[in-house]
């Protein structure tokens, strides 16, 4: 984005913000491949509870992660109004099931605040940092943690 090597932290980044229940989260827009409506998924046997199943994304088999369940906020009851954010994590493409996309933000990395020291291990595990914007708190998701560890190794 910027050629200035001495101030990499100043380079603005864009984030896609979305809602899960009443909370707001975001992911780096560079990881987002597309955003699509919800479609029923095919259940995967022996999968963790937060893996909704797999759907057909133009011929590729795409696993869907219920982000609400993954963050420990309870399993989502998906409806037509839910949204799937298709993200690229390393070599894999995964769909994240969220309530709705709320915003596209332009921030600089130095605006990011460290994750508040809350007790919940789950929350700290998946949140890289938080942004404070116009009175809202938006948490940046650590995408690498979203898929279960063994699944990533197996692939």
């Amino acid at each position, binding site marked *: 984005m910027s050629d200035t090597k001495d101030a990499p932290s100043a380079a603005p980044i864009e984030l896609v913000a979305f809602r899960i229940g009443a909370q707001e989260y975001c992911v780096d827009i560079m990881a987002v491949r597309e955003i699509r409506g919800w479609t029923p998924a095919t259940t995967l046997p022996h999968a963790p509870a937060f893996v909704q199943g797999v759907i057909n994304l133009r011929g590729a088999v795409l*696993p869907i992660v219920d982000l609400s369940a993954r963050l420990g906020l309870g399993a989502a009851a998906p409806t037509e109004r839910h949204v799937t954010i298709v993200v690229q994590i390393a070599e*894999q493409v995964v769909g994240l099931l969220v309530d709705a996309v709320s915003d596209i933000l332009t921030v600089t990395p130095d605006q990011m605040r460290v994750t508040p020291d809350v007790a919940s291990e789950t929350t700290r595990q998946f949140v890289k940092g938080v942004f404070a914007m116009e009175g809202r708190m938006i948490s940046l998701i650590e995408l690498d943690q979203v898929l279960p560890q063994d699944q990533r190794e*197996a*692939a």
Partner: protein
Amino acid sequence: MSSDALAQLRQTFFEECDEQLAELESGLLQMQDGATDSETVNAVFRAVHSVKGGAGAFKLTTLVSFAHVFETALDEIRSDKLEAGPSLMKAMLRASDVLADLVSAARNGDDVDAALWRGLADEIAGFCGKEKAAPVSAAAPAGFTPEPLAFTPQPLAFTPQPMAFTPQPMALPSLTPAPAAEDAQAGGGLRILFRPRIELYEKANDAVVLLRELERLGAMRVTCDLSEVPPLDALDPHGACLGFDIRLVTDRDEQAVREVFEFCEEDCDLVIRREAAPAAEAAAAPDPAAILNALRPAPKDTPADPPAAAPAAGNPAEPQAADKTAAKPADPARAAEEAAAQRAAATPAPATIRVDLDRVDRLINLVGELVINQAMLAQAVQGADGARDPAVSGGLDELDQLTREIQESVMAIRAQPLKPLFQRMSRIVREVADATGKKVRLITDGEWTEVDKTVVERLADPLTHMIRNAIDHGLEKPADRLAAGKPEEGVVRLSAAHRSGRVVIQISDDGAGVNREKVRAIAVGKGLVAADAQLSESDIDNLIFLPGFSTTEKISAISGRGVGMDVVKRSIHALSGRIFLKSRRGQGSEFTLSLPLTLAVLDGMVVTVDGQTLVAPLSAIVETMSLDAGRLRAFGASNAVIADRDGFVPIIDTAAELGFRAHRRVEGGDKGVALLVESEGGGRSALVVDAIQDQRQVVIKSLETNYGRVPGVAAATILGDGRVALILDVDALVARARGAATEPLLAAAG
């Protein structure tokens, strides 16, 4: 050149090597069977020569040295100086094996033990020593000897020659056109101006060999053009400074001459002209040296030109056209057009193209999408009013037909003949026959049968193992064969054919057949079957597929490599294939493999399990039966069995195994269907599903790309409604269920 481009060239070279090696071996096998026509011998020579040439370019000296000895011997066979007797042919075939080894060592960058090839090189060189007549060739320089032990690469053998000439201007009387006129009058005279560039020598080609080759086409007169030879103090000993002015009287056409230079056309300046009449010749080319000089920069101007597009593209019907570059026609535009037309005529349309496998796979994926989309469209229209319109339904039918055809054509791109695989087997047969001291003849049939590339590749190991087994265990020792009234030489037959949408490969031998008492005794001894088990003959034969079974009492180097027939069976299963053994005592055994033509699609049974749609591979299903209360028997605490023709088969609750619901006993009152499957190890099980929906071909999609392995699931597919359906891994399901049956506590925890 960037290292990337070089790596790519290298890759292409090795790919071509594989083709040349296959060509070489099949040619040698034909020669062994008595084919002595020059076509075959030439093809074999060309194959070795191409490997050598390419190897030279990549400075693979070992490969060049060995190929050189090989080539020398072939050259002598070609020129009838050496007779291709059985012992020589045997050595030649071994040489082709060694050459293949050297190529693969070079590809992997491995060091090669000189003992591997030097002995054989000496042996072949020994044959050359006994040539029928001393090589008499006017063009042979003193520096060149066919002494095969001289492993110095060709350029070195040739470089001393320029030194032998006094670097003084010489009168070259033969350059005057007079003798050419005589030749031209005598018959079809060709004037060939040939100036090798240094690249030619660097690729281990030799001008002398080429000249000698030319001589075989007719009466030849060669004049060496020394005009480029610098004074001695300025002489680059590695440089190329000689040109050759050749007059050839031959009844062969220009194409034949061009073929001689086939491998080095890029690396030399070459003009071939028909000397029609002295007058025309004089007008067109007053001085060959001038032409050579004029030619020099030409290849640099058009570096992108392929070799076949060299100025004088051969067209016998239009001999004067060859003069194009020397004598420019008036209209340059027309000339360009003609040259293009000639180029097209000179290079026959290539029979094959090299395509990146990724591109083919992308195409296959897209066509898979098309098939799914077509099914979805058809489903949507059926529900709508459009279905009543004959134009719509007719169009849909046609679309269905077309997509199916496209799919088949695309799959055919990946299809490859089994020939290279079968050729590898002939090598295995030679090796094992040598090692065991048995006499074996391999008969192959149906080697042009085409199968998916991956299937061909993954068949290599199991097939090798089975061929080894057939010779090592199947065939008797020569003395035993004679005692049994059989010919000393055993026969192993390898055949392939398409049969109802699958490929069937059979490996049979005329050996002793399975020793059933022994097999049974071993199986009982190893606790694989009960001592009092009732086994049919075919049951006993198939015991050899059980894990942990191996009939050799002593571990032999050939088949006893720690892998048994169970591994073979597992690899065949992994390809959705099946394997059977049929054996007759004293007459031999026959293994039959039945494999799918492609791994991209699968014949499956679409079933419903607990509301989910799943696909069971048809290859695993033996039969289906209803869950009839009369057939079901409770067995133990949580298990049940179902009666089939031969006995009782354990029941597996598919839904429970996949974790869709808690484990419970399947009862007679349940609705559902049992899929009788045969799994690894030969055992039967009955998978219980709720209903069978359909039986159809499905496109296989990977689950592992974006997710990972799922126990009990082999892959996924996309059905006509656009939803993903999982393909069951029957073997894994059965193994899991069996594990659960013995260790219920662990299974519950897992």
